[in-house]
C-alpha cells in the first residue's frame, strides 16, 4: 500500500491516460462515461492526497523510471500545482456528473465514446502540465490537452456549424502558441543545456544578460499568452467557448486557461528568476498594461453581447486580466491573489456556464431572450446562476469577493493604489453585464411556448455543489488563501523543500 502512495505523482497522469484507450475499446456510452468518471474521481483523490502531503509547504519529487534528475524526467508536486491539480480534477469530476445528460442532447450517440476519450486525454494533458518538472514535458502535455480540446470544441458542430470554424481557428492559434513555446524551450536548452526546471533555475543565474535567455522568455510569454487568452491574443476564445458543447465550455473555462497561466507563473518564478531586470520590464510594460486594458475593454464588450455564452467568454478574458495583474505585481501578495483568483474564478465560471447550459438545455441557444423569465420556471438553476454572477462581480460573501479583495490588498501593498481603484471600477462593469442576464431571468415574462422543463437531480446536484462552493469559499478561506499563500511564498522565495 505504501508503494502505491509513493507513485501517486505518476498515477495522477497515468490513470486518465491509460483509461482513454480503454474507453475507445469499450465503445458504449454509459460504460465509457463510467470509466471516465472513475478516472476523474481517482485523479481527484490522488490530487487531494498530494495536496494534503504538501500542505506544510514541502514538495515531492518523483523520478520517472528511477532516473534521477536532471537526466531523467522529474515530477514535482508542491502546494502551487497540487492546489491546481485539485481544482482541475475537481472541476472535471463535477462537470462529468452532469455531462451525461447534457451530452445526450448535444452530441450524436455514436460519438459519445470518442468524446469521453478526448475528455480523458484533455484531463491527462492538463494534469501533466501541472505536475511535470521538465520543460519539454510541459510542451508535450500541453499539446495532448490542446489537441483533444480542438476535437472537443468541434463537437459543438451538431448544434452550430460555426463550432468547426472556431475549432479550426483555435487549432491554428493554439499550434502557433505551442510552437512559440517550444522555440522558447529550445533557447533555454541552448543556454543552459538542461531541461529540468530546477536545474535550469540554478544554471540560469548568471545568464541574465544572455540574449538567448531573454529571447526565450519573450517566446514563452507570447506562447503562453496565446494559450491563456491574454488580451489581445484572445481572439480564438470567444468563438471556441461560444460554439463548443456546454460541457466542454464549462470544463475549459474553469481549467485550460488557468493551467496555461500556471505555466507562465512557473516559468517566471521557478525557471527564470523573477527579479531579472528584463522580466520585470516585460511585466511592467507589456503584461500589466494589457491586463488593465483587458479588464476594461473586454468587460465593455461583454456588456454589449446578446449571447450569454459569448458574454461570459469575454468576461473570462477580463478576469484573466485580473490574474495577470496579480502576477505582474511580482510580489508575494500579488501571487497569492492570483492563485486564489485562479481557483475562485474557476469554480465561479464553471457555475455560470453550467447553469447557463442547463437553462438553455432545450432551446440550444443562449441568447438573452432565450433565458427570459426562466427565473420562475427554473428557480433552482436560475438561483445558481445568480450566485455565480454575484461571485463573478465580487459581492461580499462569495468566493469572488475574496479574490478581488486580496488583489486590491496586493496592489495597495505594492504601492500602486490606483490599480486598486481600476480593479474596483472594472468590477462595476461586471455588475452591468451580469445584471442584464439577471434582469432577463427574473424580471421578464417567459416565452409562452416554453413548457415547464424538468431537470433531473443528476444535473441539479453537481450544479449546486458548485454554487455552494462559490459561497463556501467566500467564507472559509483557510484552504484557498492558506494554500495560495504557501504556494506563493514557495514560488517567490523559490523554496523547494524536498522530503
Amino acid at each position: 500500500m505504501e508503494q502505491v502512495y509513493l507513485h501517486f505523482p505518476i498515477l495522477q497522469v497515468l490513470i486518465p491516460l491509460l483509461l482513454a484507450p480503454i474507453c475507445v475499446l469499450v465503445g458504449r456510452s454509459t460504460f465509457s462515461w463510467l470509466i471516465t468518471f472513475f478516472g476523474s474521481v481517482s485523479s481527484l483523490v490522488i490530487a487531494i492526497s498530494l495536496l494534503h502531503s504538501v500542505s506544510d509547504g514541502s514538495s515531492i519529487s518523483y523520478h520517472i523510471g528511477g532516473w534521477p534528475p536532471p537526466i531523467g524526467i522529474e515530477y514535482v508536486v508542491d502546494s502551487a500545482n497540487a492546489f491546481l491539480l485539485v481544482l482541475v480534477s475537481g472541476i472535471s469530476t463535477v462537470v462529468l456528473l452532469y455531462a451525461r445528460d447534457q451530452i445526450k442532447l448535444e452530441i450524436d450517440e455514436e460519438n459519445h465514446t470518442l468524446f469521453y476519450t478526448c475528455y480523458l486525454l484533455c484531463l491527462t494533458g492538463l494534469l501533466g502540465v501541472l505536475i511535470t518538472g521538465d520543460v519539454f514535458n510541459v510542451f508535450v502535455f500541453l499539446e495532448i490537452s490542446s489537441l483533444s480540446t480542438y476535437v472537443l470544441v468541434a463537437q459543438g458542430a451538431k448544434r452550430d456549424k460555426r463550432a468547426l470554424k472556431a475549432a479550426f481557428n483555435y487549432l491554428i492559434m493554439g499550434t502557433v502558441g505551442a510552437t512559440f513555446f517550444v522555440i522558447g524551450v529550445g533557447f533555454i536548452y541552448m543556454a543552459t543545456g538542461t531541461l529540468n526546471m530546477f536545474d535550469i533555475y540554478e544554471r540560469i543565474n548568471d545568464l541574465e544578460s544572455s540574449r538567448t535567455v531573454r529571447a526565450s522568455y519573450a517566446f514563452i510569454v507570447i506562447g503562453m499568452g496565446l494559450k491563456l487568452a491574454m488580451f489581445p491574443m484572445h481572439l480564438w476564445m470567444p468563438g471556441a467557448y461560444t460554439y463548443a458543447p456546454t460541457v466542454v465550455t464549462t470544463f475549459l473555462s474553469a481549467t485550460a486557461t488557468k493551467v496555461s497561466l500556471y505555466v507562465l507563473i512557473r516559468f517566471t518564478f521557478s525557471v527564470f528568476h523573477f527579479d531579472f531586470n528584463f522580466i520585470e520590464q516585460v511585466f511592467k510594460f507589456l503584461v500589466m498594461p494589457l491586463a488593465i486594458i483587458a479588464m476594461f475593454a473586454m468587460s465593455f464588450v461583454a456588456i454589449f453581447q446578446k449571447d450569454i455564452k459569448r458574454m461570459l467568454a469575454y468576461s473570462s478574458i477580463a478576469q484573466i486580466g485580473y490574474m495577470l495583474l496579480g502576477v505582474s505585481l511580482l510580489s508575494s501578495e500579488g501571487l497569492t491573489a492570483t492563485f486564489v483568483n485562479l481557483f475562485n474564478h474557476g469554480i465561479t465560471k464553471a457555475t455560470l456556464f453550467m447553469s447557463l447550459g442547463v437553462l438553455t438545455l432545450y432551446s440550444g441557444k443562449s441568447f438573452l431572450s432565450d433565458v427570459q423569465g426562466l427565473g420562475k420556471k427554473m428557480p433552482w438553476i436560475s438561483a445558481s446562476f445568480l450566485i455565480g454572477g454575484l461571485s463573478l462581480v465580487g459581492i461580499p460573501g462569495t468566493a469572488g469577493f475574496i479574490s478581488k479583495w486580496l488583489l486590491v490588498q496586493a496592489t495597495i501593498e505594492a504601492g500602486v493604489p490606483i490599480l486598486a481603484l481600476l480593479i474596483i471600477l472594472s468590477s462595476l462593469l461586471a455588475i452591468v453585464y451580469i445584471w442584464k442576464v439577471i434582469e432577463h431571468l427574473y424580471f421578464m415574462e417567459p416565452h409562452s411556448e416554453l413548457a415547464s422543463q424538468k431537470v433531473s437531480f443528476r444535473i441539479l446536484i453537481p450544479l449546486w455543489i458548485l454554487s455552494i462552493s462559490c459561497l463556501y469559499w467566500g467564507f472559509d478561506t483557510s484552504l484557498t488563501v492558506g494554500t495560495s499563500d504557501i504556494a506563493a511564498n514557495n514560488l517567490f522565495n523559490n523554496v523547494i523543500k524536498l522530503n
Partner: protein
Amino acid sequence: MDFIQVPSSYIFYLAAAITFVFLRDRTLRSVLLICVPIIALIQVWNLEIGNHHQVDFFNLQLELMRVDKLSKVFGLIFCLAAFLGNLYAWHVKDVVQQIATLVYTGSAIGAVFAGDLVSLFFYWEGTAIASVFLIWARRTEASYHTGMRYLLIQISSGVILLAGLAVQFHTTGSIAFEKMELSSLSSFLIFISFGIKCAFPLLHNWLQDSYPAATVTGTVILSSFTTKLAIYALARSFAGTEILIYIGAIMTLFPIFFAEIENDLRRVLAYSLNNQLGFMVVGIGVGTELALNGTASHAFAHILYKSLLFMSVGAVLFRTGTSKASELGGLYKTMPLSALCCLIGAASISAFPLFSGFVTKSLIMDATATEHYPVIWCVLVFASAGVLSHSGIKIPYFTFFAHDSGLRPKEAPINMLIAMFITSFLCVFLGVFPDTLYNILPYEVNYKPYTISHVISQLQLLCFALLAFTVIMKLGFHPPEIRAINLDSDWVYRKYLPSIMLRIINRLGSVNESTRSGLENKISSGEQILLNIFGPTANFARVFTNGVMILWIAVIFTGALAIVLF
C-alpha cells in the same frame, strides 16, 4: 454566546431566504414581513451593552454585535421603521421588493451593530445592492436607468470605504470602526464614503434622483435607512469634526430653494430629507453630548415623520398615479385621513410644539448656541423656516388643498392608513412625552424642550412664516407649480460629461460616417458611444479571421522581444 445576542441582521436574512425559497403565498409573505421587524425590535430592545458576536475572517476579528447606547437607538428606530414600512406595503405582491426590503433593512441594522470597518463594509454594500431593487421594482426603463445611476454611486461609496479601510489597515493594522481624526488618507477616504451616503452637498444628487423613481412603498423604505445609516456612521467616527458643522449648514440651506420650486412632491421630500440631514450633520460636527443626543433623537424622529410624509404622498401617488404638485390639489375631499396624517407629518417636520420635530431639533439648535456658533445658529433657524415652507406648507397644501384638481380618488387602502396612523401617533406621542425618547439616547439628557420662551419663539417663527406665506400667496408671488424639472448637480454626469465624451469621440474620428450621423441624434446617449467602441460590430468584438489574429501575435511578440532585448 447568548442566543438573544445573535446579529439582528441574520433574522432578516433568514427571513429573506425563507421568502425566496418557500413562501409562495402572498399573505404569508406579508405576515412574515411584519413579524420579522417586531421580533428584531424585541431582540434589540433586550440587547445588553457590550460586544457579543465575534467572527474570524482572514485573520481579522470581526465584531458583528457591538451594542452600545448609540447603536441601540439606531437599531430600535430601524426596526420600527421596517415594521411601519412593511405594514404600509402589506398589499405589495412583488416578491422581489419584499426580499429586497428584508435584505436592505437587515443590512442597515447589521451595519449599525457592526463593530469594525470590514463588516461595516459588507453591510454597507448590502444596503446599496438590496435597495436598488426597490427602484428597479418599478420596472420601467426610466427607473432602470435611475437605478443604475443610484447603484453606481452607492457602490462607489462602498468602494471608497473599502479603499479607506484598506489604507487604514495597511498603516495601523486596525480595522476598528471607532472615532477617528480627519487627518490621514484613510480617514479622509472613509469620510468621503460616509459623505456620499449622507448626501453631502454636491454628492447629494443620487438622493433626489432615485427616491422619486422607486415604487410607492419602496420610497418609504428607502427614506428610512440609507442616509440615517450614514448619519450613524458619521456620529460614530467623526463626532466633533468641525468641518461637518459647515457642511451640515450648507446642507440645510441649499435644498430649501430647490424644494420650493420642485414639482414632483416625492422629490420635494427628498430635498427636504437632505435638509434635515443637514441638521443632524451639524449636530455631529458640534460633537458635544447634547449635540450627539440631538442628532440621534432627530434621526429617530425624522425617520418617523419623513416616512409619514412619504407614506401620505405615496398613498396619493398610489391612488392617482401622479405625485406632481401641478396635477394635484383638493384631495382632502376624498382622502381626508391621508390629509390628516400628512398634516401631522408636516407639523412634526416643521417642529410645531407638541410634535416630535420640536423636541428633537431644539436639542441640536441649543447645542450650536451653547457652543457659540451664532452664524450656524442663524442658518439653522433660517433653515427651520425653510422646512416649513416646503415640507410644512407645500406638501400638504398643494396635494390636499389649494385649487381643486378635480381628482376624486378613493381613500388610501386600509393597511396604508393603519401604518400612517401608527406613525402619526408616534410623532405626536414623542412630541408630547419627549422623555420616552430622551431616556434611550446615548447620553444623559438634562434638557427641557417645553419652556415658555422656547415655545413662544418657535411659535412666533412659524406663525409669522405662515403669515408671510399667506401674504405672498395673496400677492401672487409664490412660484407657481408648473410641469418642469430643475437642474441640479446631476446635470454634470447626465448631460455634460456625455456631451464631452461625444465630442472627444468625434474628434478622434474613430466612428465611421454612418454611425456618426446616427450618433448625433442620440447626443445624450453615452451608451451609444460605448456601443460604437465595444459593441458587437465594433473592432473590439469583431470575429476576425485567423490571419489577423496571427498578425496581432506578431505585433505583440515584437513588442515583447524589444522589451526583453533592450
